[in-house]
């Protein structure tokens, strides 16, 4: 088979992070090539580099026999590289035909040639073997059909390489079968499909070959019929556990937080409990419902039902304020969007949710505020030139400490950390770990959501695994292995 697309020594650096390191892969014409890896392994970066959304820091891309020099999204699309993202690029109020030809409308003497566009759309849809009305408005279609419109768009414009980023995630089982059939049809037409998925069954069902990434490195590319599921999982996780997780002194105490019967659009009967001095890890793939669980407990989103008991007493929590008043703290996943207040200073960020403490009469006692912020800076070793600088000037790890100190000033005794070490460097990670340990040792109940298996295994006393909104299992310390967690996390909707 001939090579259609080749990556040679592709490296992508971000300040302080290497997203991809020296990755070389060849993609053959007309193959289905799966790309696998844990969250944060570099899959998204790889997609973006192939589509030209970002430029590699080093390395070369060869497409159709020649080096790609001016790699940008429009050029790569024109050259025949199409991508179907998890968020569709469709315009809901336009028809299927209008969407398929959006931005590349056919015209005759300056007037839209609707008949021809409709005819071509019809032909492609028929080729794909589905029944979609080319005149239907996209917003009236199901998600599965919308995805097919995206595929039709790519096919109409003669894509030679089609990237699909987690295409199965939003689909029902019936829709999934359509998708599989279409992927095979595309392959028969000679299209190369790069299939990114964390559902291993699909990989074994569809792919000819699989490339595994881990921590930005290319672990290997193998023919799928030369390996089994266990081997693939081993390639994905296969790193040694760091022994750099500090140990804790105190055994778990009384139950601090008990959540039962959590139901929402995305969550199905989640129950959990966490004890004083304990760290409960929550594992799961992207979209498993981990962040939703945290936000529901914190009162940030409304849910269909939830029962919460704190220290044995039932409480109702319907807003973040109430959660904070009950002693629950959340360190959110998305530091930029939900954590820091970028336009405020470090001091103002630290005191922001506990300003009540500092108010004397009507006014904020700034000296008192400053003293407390200073104490937090010492305690958490926040590296900042002073407390007046804007928080956005600090490094990721130090911003995270600022968000943490904001929560600590509320004297919460249940702390929920959502991806506490995402995007921060190794040294700062260690500090966050030991802070979390100190907190657990001082009697707090800690919940830690993380996509990084080693830190979950290293830090947690118990790990609860979510998959597609269901709790698929709970593991105790002696059962912790990356394989067992990944097995439960990709268990699918078996419930």
């Amino acid at each position, binding site marked *: 088979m001939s090579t259609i697309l080749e990556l040679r020594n592709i490296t992508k650096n971000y300040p302080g992070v290497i997203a991809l390191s020296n990755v070389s892969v060849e993609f053959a014409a007309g193959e289905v090539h799966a790309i696998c890896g844990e969250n944060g392994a570099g899959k998204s970066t790889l997609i973006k580099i192939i589509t030209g959304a970002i430029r590699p820091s080093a390395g070369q891309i060869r497409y159709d026999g020649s080096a790609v020099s001016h790699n940008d999204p429009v050029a790569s699309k024109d050259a025949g590289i199409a991508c179907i993202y998890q968020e569709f690029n469709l315009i809901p109020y336009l028809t299927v035909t209008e969407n398929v030809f959006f931005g590349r409308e056919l015209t005759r003497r300056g007037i839209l040639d609707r008949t021809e566009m409709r005819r071509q759309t019809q032909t492609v849809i028929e080729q794909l073997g589905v029944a979609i009305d080319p005149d239907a408005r996209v917003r009236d279609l199901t998600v599965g059909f919308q995805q097919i419109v995206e595929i039709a768009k790519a096919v109409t414009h003669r894509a030679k390489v089609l990237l699909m980023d987690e295409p199965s995630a939003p689909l029902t089982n019936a829709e999934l079968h359509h998708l599989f059939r279409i992927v095979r049809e595309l392959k028969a037409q000679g299209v190369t499909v790069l299939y990114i998925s964390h559902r291993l069954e699909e990989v074994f069902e569809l792919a000819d070959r699989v490339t595994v990434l881990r921590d930005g490195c290319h672990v290997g590319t193998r023919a799928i019929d030369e390996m089994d599921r266990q081997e693939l999982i081993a390639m994905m996780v296969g790193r040694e556990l760091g022994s750099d997780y500090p140990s804790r002194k105190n055994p778990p105490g009384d139950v601090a937080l008990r959540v039962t019967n959590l139901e929402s659009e995305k969550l199905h009967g989640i129950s959990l409990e966490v004890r004083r001095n304990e760290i409960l890890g929550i594992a799961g793939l992207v979209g498993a419902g981990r962040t939703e669980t945290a936000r529901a407990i914190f009162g940030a989103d409304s849910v269909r039902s939830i029962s919460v008991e704190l220290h044995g007493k039932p409480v109702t929590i319907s807003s*973040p*304020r109430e959660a904070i008043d009950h002693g629950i703290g959340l360190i959110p996943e998305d530091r930029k969007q939900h*954590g820091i*207040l970028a336009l*405020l200073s470090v001091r103002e960020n630290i005191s922001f*949710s506990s300003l009540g403490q500092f*108010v004397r009469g009507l006014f904020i006692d700034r000296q008192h505020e400053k003293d407390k912020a200073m104490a937090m800076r010492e305690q958490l070793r926040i590296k900042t030139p002073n407390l*007046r600088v804007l928080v956005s000037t600090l490094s990721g790890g130090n911003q995270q400490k600022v968000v943490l100190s904001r929560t600590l000033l*509320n004297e919460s005794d249940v702390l929920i950390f959502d991806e506490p070490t995402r995007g921060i460097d190794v040294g700062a990670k260690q500090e966050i770990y030991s802070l979390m340990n100190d907190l657990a040792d001082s009697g707090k109940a800690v919940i830690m959501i993380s996509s990084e298996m080693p830190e979950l295994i290293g830090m947690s006393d118990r790990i609860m695994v979510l998959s597609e909104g269901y709790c698929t299992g709970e593991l105790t310390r002696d059962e912790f292995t990356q394989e067992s967690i990944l097995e439960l996390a990709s268990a699918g909707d078996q419930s």
Partner: protein
Amino acid sequence: MSTVSLVNERRSIREQIAIYALPIALVALIVFFSLSSSAFLTVRNIVNIFRQVSIVGICAMGMTFVILTGGIDLSVGSVLGVSVVTCASLMVAGLSPILAILISLVAGVVIGFLVGVFVNEVGIPPLITTLGFMTALRGVAFRITNGLPVYDFPDSFAVIGQGYVGVIPVPVIIMMVVVVVCVVVLNRTKFGRHVYGLGGNEEATRLSGVDVKRTKYTIYMLEGLLAALAGVVLLSRVNSGQPAAGQGYEMDIITGVVLGGVSISGGSGRIGGVVVGVLLMGVLTNGMILMNVDEYSQWMVKGLVLVAAVSLDTIASRRGATA
């Protein structure tokens, strides 16, 4: 710690523009008008400028809070108009000035609350909500007086708009009090801190336990109150309750606030800058009148000033984002 480094650390580029460029522009404008018209740089005219800007200045303080949270209030001029005719009609009907003023102020607060209901509970963007309120409330103002001016008030009422303390007109004193109160509220209270947080990052603010809705209600009620207060001052100054009072004021008010360095997307800006921004608009208007610039041309100039101010803001924040 020197002042310069303080500025660099704490203030955004657009605030620095407000701090340095704006006073320079103001001085340049003053020099220009002084050279162009001998009537400009006189004590009498300067006092006059301050008195003229006091109405807009009072409203601009409320608008600062609104824009800091990322909102906008186009209805401010109409609220002012409603306040003018309410207060005037009540006094003509025989109520004491004090009572009439209080009722007008309460009306302003209630209107602000209603704006809050649509913004918070229904979820309509403030721009559209207040656009609707602008027209509806202007209708209310004309309805109240059947389109006619109302006059003949007790003499004591004139003090608010026409009185002096020494050489300083009472409206200017009222404006200064409002400015001082707003500076303190914005910089020294919990509420003020929440306003900044809300404008910069609403979700993070909510997750920090701030009652975002209540904060928004408060700012629109505050803006309503201040617009109504400005209406009372204006009524007393012109001594006649015109239902068209305050028409088009939103333009001068918003321009003053944005010129003063308050980011139109919320989260940053200082009252001090707004005071200079409002003064600059006042000097510009006054100078153009003294130079006999016709009203149509004045509109052209003011409109361009607003666009220029927002352009500066936008360019500055884009630079800030890439830097």
